């Protein structure tokens, strides 16, 4: 058993998000909404690892991630792995994967982009935001509608409460 595994408590049932880019654990917890969960979480920041220089790790009891959360993690930490735990055993382990097209997840910050058009009625056009992934490492995505290109630290997620969450403010 490697050193880092000893340092963080094992969980009986839930999810382990491992190989998170160092410094991104708190951002992931916040942006995915996991932070609002009442369940027990253990977080390792700047854990020494063989694979990457340093990494973060999150363990959450009784929580399994949905597709949107997995996509959000793939954007923030493309090397992350997700393990599902039952009875202290890993029953499934997968690597996150950035989708080729990211839908409904990210806000285009171009105020003259049609996805941001404010209709006189107060509504918006009946479309979802959509971004093509140009490169994964480093991440570059392009709005399908207005063509604007965004790097990782320029991305803003759409969040459930309609309050947009900026990545930049989270990462120091």
């Amino acid at each position, binding site marked *: 058993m490697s050193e880092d595994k000893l340092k963080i408590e094992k969980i009986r049932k839930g999810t382990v998000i491992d190989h998170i880019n160092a410094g991104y654990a708190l951002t992931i917890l916040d942006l995915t909404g996991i932070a609002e969960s009442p369940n027990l979480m253990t977080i390792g920041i700047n854990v020494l690892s063989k694979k990457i220089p340093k990494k973060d790790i999150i363990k959450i009891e009784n929580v399994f991630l949905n597709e949107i959360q997995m996509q959000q993690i793939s954007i923030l930490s493309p090397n992350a792995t997700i393990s599902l735990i039952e009875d202290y055993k890993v029953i499934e382990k997968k690597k996150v994967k950035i989708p080729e097209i990211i839908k409904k997840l990210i806000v285009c910050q171009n105020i003259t982009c*049609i996805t941001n058009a404010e209709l006189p009625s107060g509504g918006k056009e009946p479309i979802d935001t959509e971004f093509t992934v140009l490169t994964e490492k480093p991440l570059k995505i392009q*709005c399908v509608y207005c063509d604007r290109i965004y790097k990782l630290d320029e991305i803003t997620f759409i969040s459930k409460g309609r309050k947009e969450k900026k990545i930049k403010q989270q990462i120091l």
Partner: protein
Amino acid sequence: MFKEKFGEGIISAKQFNREDIEYLLKKSREMVNSTNTNLLKGKILATLFFEPSTRTRLSFESAMYRLGGNVIGFQSGEVSSIKKGESLADTIRTVENYCDCIVIRHSMEGAAKLASRFSEVPIINAGSGSGEHPTQALLDLLTIKEECGKLDGLNIGIMGDLKYGRTVHSLAVLFSNFNVNLYFISPKELTIRNQEKEFLIQRQIKFKEVIQYRSLLDLLDVLYMTRIQRERFVDVEEYEKVKNVYIFKQEDLVNTKNTFILMHPLPRITEISPDVDSSKKAIYFKQTSYGLMMRKAILAELLAD
């Protein structure tokens, strides 16, 4: 073949490869001597201009009438349902039932793309915010091809508002299909956007960004000037600072090649002084006639049975 590939219409210059462009250039040329005025008989073109325009709209309408078709449409200010708050998506889903093709101009980027997602009939992007204006760029390539005899090997300067100038964006993308040297000339506030630069770098197209144009005049084959558009500026002071930054005068022609051509998508304000107009190197009024040829070719290709 063209009709199949461009089934959703002409939304972006990125849809075009070299073969598509050369095909349209050839078809445009055929339009000059074409006597077929019934090619689009019974077809209806809808022109939806959410932003005012005379040239582009008249050019499309004239092209459609000359091919025997009909035109319906509106332009900004006339539109009651939009003022009531109807979405663009709803407008498109209504209008597509009345016509065979929709030409759209809109103040927001991505409007034509959105329209194409809601329409069964082809959409032609006639300008979407500061995004793209692909048919203008196509007619500009036709102009250069006809006036210079070729596209490959040319030194091309594009000058003015490269940040908000939608024609410039489409033009840079179309040029990436040819072996050209591009010179982007602009004040530092209005340099070409990252998305175009990345596209050109990815395609290994040589380009330089410069502020002054005079030292380039003896090497350029084409100088494409654009207007600095007040309506795109959020900050009026910014506009005042750069509005008169370039004024091409008659004496600038002295240093240019014999074969040099000066282009402009029009309308111009002060950026080309009127004493240049009489030079045979000034071809911006001729561009308009190439525009009609190109738009006839586009409509014929998209709509003829």
